């Protein structure tokens, strides 16, 4: 039993130890304010990572999420500021477009049996390209609703606040756990990631599941784009560059097998927080340069991949190596 949750336990331990180390070094670190900011700052990443977790569990990958976030911010800015739409309508439109975009990629992946990696790569080009075509400028969004939404928060003693994006992220994670473990769709996802052919033989609606999971990932990237737009108050087609890597990293650190079929949504949440923690630490330290974030995250990625390899070997009970020269 414990074996199955080991990656999750290790990841959580890393988070707790990391947090304690930070708290030991900086007295102000262990405060609700820092935790609140950690959640708010990483809300868009967390929301995207949920979609990515599902896609990876199903044995695929979605490289387009960063581009979809960028495109969504541009679309919102253009609709609200230039076309005069109400933000609510613009949000709905953005969600519809991003979900449809994801579904289209899923359809191509399924119908033409193309590697998800390459299809979503093309999707990334298209989403960034569409953003560029709309505008290459950064457009500020000044609609009053943005101010109102940014003020929505649960406030705690000591200056801590749980902002709307943070609440959204927590809600998305909660729903995602239910979806993954208490619905047939969730079981189908794991089945698909375990072995596509077997899943098909066992009557899993492979096509529908594939399309749905990419639609879900696209839709969540759209939601993350809305959060990002609220957070930055602007639309920029180069926004969220490289977020696809950050989300994949969060998913892997969270203990999900990149080959699909094994992993937990909750782990991804911890993975996102670990990344956020590193960033916060570097901000707190002040003397460390931002590029250390990338290097440390790369190193963490390496360590967790090694850990997964080791665990999988233990899982399958094949301790003995095959000497494939």
């Amino acid at each position: 039993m414990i074996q199955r949750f080991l990656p999750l336990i290790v990841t959580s331990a890393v988070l707790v130890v990391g947090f304690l180390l930070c708290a030991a070094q900086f007295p102000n670190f262990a405060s609700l304010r820092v935790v609140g900011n950690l959640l708010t700052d990483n809300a868009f990443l967390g929301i995207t990572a949920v979609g990515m977790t599902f896609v990876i569990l199903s044995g695929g990958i979605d490289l387009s999420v960063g581009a979809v976030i960028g495109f969504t911010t541009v679309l919102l800015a253009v609709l609200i500021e230039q076309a005069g739409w109400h933000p609510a309508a613009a949000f709905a439109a953005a969600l519809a477009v991003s979900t449809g975009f994801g579904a289209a990629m899923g359809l191509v992946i399924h119908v033409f049996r193309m590697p998800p990696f390459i299809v979503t790569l093309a999707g990334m080009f298209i989403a960034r390209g569409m953003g560029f075509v709309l505008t290459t400028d950064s457009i500020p969004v000044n609609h009053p609703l943005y101010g109102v939404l940014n003020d929505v928060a649960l406030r705690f003693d000591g200056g801590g606040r749980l902002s709307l994006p943070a609440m959204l992220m927590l809600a998305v994670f909660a729903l995602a756990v239910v979806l993954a473990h208490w619905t047939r769709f969730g079981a189908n996802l794991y089945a698909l990631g375990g072995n596509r052919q077997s899943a098909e033989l066992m009557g899993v609606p492979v096509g529908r599941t594939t399309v749905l999971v990419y639609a879900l990932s696209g839709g969540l990237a759209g939601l993350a784009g809305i959060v990002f737009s609220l957070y930055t108050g602007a639309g920029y087609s180069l926004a969220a560059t490289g977020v696809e890597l950050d989300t994949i990293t969060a998913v892997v650190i969270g203990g999900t097998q990149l080959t699909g079929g094994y992993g937990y949504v909750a782990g991804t949440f911890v993975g996102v927080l670990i990344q956020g923690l590193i960033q916060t630490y570097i901000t707190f330290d002040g003397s460390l340069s931002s590029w250390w974030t990338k290097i440390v995250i790369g190193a963490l990625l390496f360590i967790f991949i090694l850990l997964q390899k080791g665990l999988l070997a233990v899982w399958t009970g094949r301790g003995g190596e095959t000497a494939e020269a």
Partner: protein
Amino acid sequence: MTAPSPDASPPLLAIRGLSKAFLGVQALDGVDFTLHHGEVHALLGENGAGKSTLIKTLTGVYQRDAGLVALEGREIAPRSVDEAQRLHIGTVFQEVNLLPNLSVAENLFLGRQPTRFGFVDRRAMNRRARAVLVPYGLAIDVTAPLGRFSVATQQIIAIARAVDMSAKVLILDEPTASLDAQEVAVLFTVMRTLKARGIGIVFVTHFLDQVYAVCDRITVLRNGRLVGERRTAELPRLDLVAMMLGRELEEAAHRIELGPAGGDDRAPLARFRGYGKARSVEPFDLDIRPGEVVGLAGLLGSGRTETARLVFGMDRADRGEATVDGRPVRLRDPRTAIRLGFGFCPEDRKKEGIVGELSVRENIILALQARQGWLKPLPRRRQEEIADRFIRLLDIRTPDAERPIQLLSGGNQQKALLARWLATEPRLLILDEPTRGIDVGAHAEIIRLIERLCADGMALLVVSSELEEIAAYSRRVVVLRDRRHVAELRGEEVTVERIVAAIAAEPGAKEPGAKEPGATAPGATAPGGAPR
């Protein structure tokens, strides 16, 4: 030509005039097949006979071109495995078609999980899973991932799933291929229970003794056509083999002339002492001399393949010593073994043998080239010479040497693999199931080749399930049981009976089940060895 029904009620499953072609190749040509309630019906045939096409057409993987399929008198035409299952036709494919990453319960109920308010009720699912497995004698943790359990347990879970989904027809496609005798016995018990419940079972297998152990009736296909349907009790084994092969059997496998005793005096080419690997094979002693065939016999999973892999360095030994030509060696990987003059044709040709997309020529020269190193490429003309020579010599049937090897039939792929090693002029050739899954003609040719190579002074180590075959060409046979070398038979001792006796020697250790005396194998039939 359908055998008369035992009773007047419509048969459980009736197939009439079923045809299916692929790109002009007629895989099934007007085949009839009848399955009754509560019978186990063997579907037999050599490779290319059309068995798997028949099954796949029946289960909706392929759509038939012509013909009629009726279940209890009602015509059906499933378009997917899923739909076939809903029509009460359940299938358990050769490779376990379940999901190792999901729990046992999830595997049993995937797609039909009990739900409450739209959400999966995991507790109810686990409870029902335990209940479903009771009749099969499986009391296991249904929340554990399926991958933790043995292949046999997984097979039974797959059967339980199919039956629980209200299967009336259960198709078992080579379920015993990777089971040991005990597991086969358990499976047969399950099959008999299901039969008693009125379920009709279509049983596809390569093991003829299993056919006689459990089947009521036999349908034989050949080249996409129906050869005939018989009651098992009325069909002697030899007649069955003749039906499958479509010709009178060749002469009994002949025993090659063994050199006048001399063999054992020769210095061994390779000598293993206390060689073994934890959880794979117990330490063993083994000598292999030039000009002799050493057979490795035993049931599946007895450690015979593992022994072969250790000798070739595919797996690394963790104890014992190996010497070649009297010098100690460490067989770390295949490259070391190849440099010592070893060659190895693995059991799983497709996964570990051929390089599918490359041409026959490239496959043949690959080992030779690899041994020469990448810096010394074989000139193209030389490659063609080698390829053409072996294509002629081994009668590899291919339009030309540039055809991708994956387009060849199994037997021709096997011959190309042999050619790959012969091109390296090996001193020791290790063959793991060299005749498995290939057609009869190629089968006989490969056996003759083994004998010829041996006569030319090569040492061979051959793993085979075909005991008559092993007995016919081996000077010595090492018998394995439970991952242990238990006996070594030599010279006159090498007979099917002695091998079987050695396999079954330890009282109560193993039922002879899977391989009892007289397990007649196509192409290597030794009528004398069949007691029936």
